[in-house]
């Protein structure tokens, strides 16, 4: 049985701010040209516990977003999300201006927030999935997830709680902060790209620049979220805290950003 598409595993290095700054500066220029993993492909990469490892990881996160921009699975899905959101808003507030970029960010952010489940990576391992893979996770049929979770229904029944007939498993994608940011930016990268299924709003609608934003305290940077250019400004989208909304992010002493060249 082949396992997973787009899951990259490596030793994790905790970067100092200075190291991270160098890593970010060099990530764009580094020759991390291997394409994203294909369906069913898992790559394991052992990396040094230095800023070279960080640079590699960021480079791969950038590449995953770049590849998502031309991925029809990501583009079609993003188009559906934005169009459904636009229709919902229109039904409540009337027509949405066709040149309005912001509704795309709101739509993608709302969808990600509704479907993302935060978990930590294993100790000393960094797992990164492609946006394509995370979107596919949300389309798993209910009977498949139910089959996998059958022991839980039995356990609940043993203590008199019958969930089998009433509980509906949600559509989820699961990961830590870098996967949350990667999924958000990957979906944003398809808006206005002109690729199949990616026409959202007017032809002129385009989100960008797209950036990863890093934050940390005590001389380290240890958290990442997405930072999306829209209408000439930027908006933070951090999906790792359940109470956050678009524009919120965790408070840190230090911040750095790196742009995804598209």
């Amino acid at each position: 049985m082949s396992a997973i598409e787009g899951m990259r595993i490596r030793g994790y290095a905790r970067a100092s701010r200075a190291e991270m700054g160098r890593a970010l500066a060099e990530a764009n220029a580094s020759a991390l040209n291997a394409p994203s993993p294909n369906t069913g492909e898992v790559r394991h990469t052992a990396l040094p516990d230095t800023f070279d490892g960080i640079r590699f990881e960021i480079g791969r996160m950038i590449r995953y977003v770049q590849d998502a921009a031309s991925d029809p699975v990501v583009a079609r899905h993003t188009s559906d999300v934005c169009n459904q959101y636009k229709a919902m808003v229109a039904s409540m507030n009337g027509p949405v201006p066709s040149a309005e970029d912001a509704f795309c960010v709101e739509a993608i952010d709302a969808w990600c927030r509704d479907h993302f489940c935060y978990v930590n990576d294993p100790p000393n391992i960094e797992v990164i999935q492609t946006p394509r893979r995370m979107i596919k996770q949300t389309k798993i049929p209910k009977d498949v997830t139910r089959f996998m979770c059958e022991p839980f229904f039995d356990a609940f029944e043993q203590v008199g709680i019958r969930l089998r007939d009433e509980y509906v498993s949600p559509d989820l994608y699961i990961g830590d902060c870098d996967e949350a940011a990667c999924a958000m930016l990957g979906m944003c990268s398809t808006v206005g790209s002109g690729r199949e299924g990616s026409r959202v709003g007017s032809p002129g609608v385009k989100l960008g620049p797209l950036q990863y934003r890093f934050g940390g305290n005590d001389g380290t940077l240890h958290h990442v979220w997405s930072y999306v250019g829209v209408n000439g400004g930027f908006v933070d989208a951090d999906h790792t805290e359940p109470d956050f909304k678009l524009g919120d992010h965790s408070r840190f002493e230090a911040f750095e950003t790196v742009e995804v060249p598209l």
Partner: protein
Amino acid sequence: MRGLGRVTADRVRFDYGRLAQTVQDTRKDGMLIDFARQICARFADMVKYWSGREGRPMAVHNNKTLFLEAVDIWCRKRFCNSGSGQWTTNPVDVIKHAAGPYFAAMELDDPSRYRMPRQAPPPSYVGTHEDAIATALGLCACLEVQPLQFRVGLVNGTPEHVWGRAHADGKWYDIDFSRPEFKLGDYMEFQDYEEVEIPL
């Protein structure tokens, strides 16, 4: 041999190195990481649903105790009960059976088009208790439920039985599948105990 079957009772020392290697290998295995994420996220959502329905909503966000409970329940149900399927001594075979349709669906560009065929019953796990525990601890490690230990029960200074311990949200929990009536936190009583830290 039924269900968990063989609980090691010989007087040779347990091969902690091999068991620890199983834990370490599990946490590096993409299929098992994905499986651990799936079952724990979904168990947490079930608890959220049920607790909300009862009017006592529980915080499930990255709740490591719930993740540990998910792994414990899943493994206890599948490794300790005799199934009607084929026998296996490899705990991962049992996981592959449960996760097979998930990975088959993920092979498609649109997994929603996957139609799950009729599934065979889960394999009956007839391997050792120690291998089952090591696999369960490995699944815990996939969710960063740590630190992890093997705990050894001693009689007259001799190791008689080994099980697992996991630390979640500030508390240690014993994981012992050797008795069907046990649940998370239960373990067999011995004269003395030793703990062996599992490096991750």
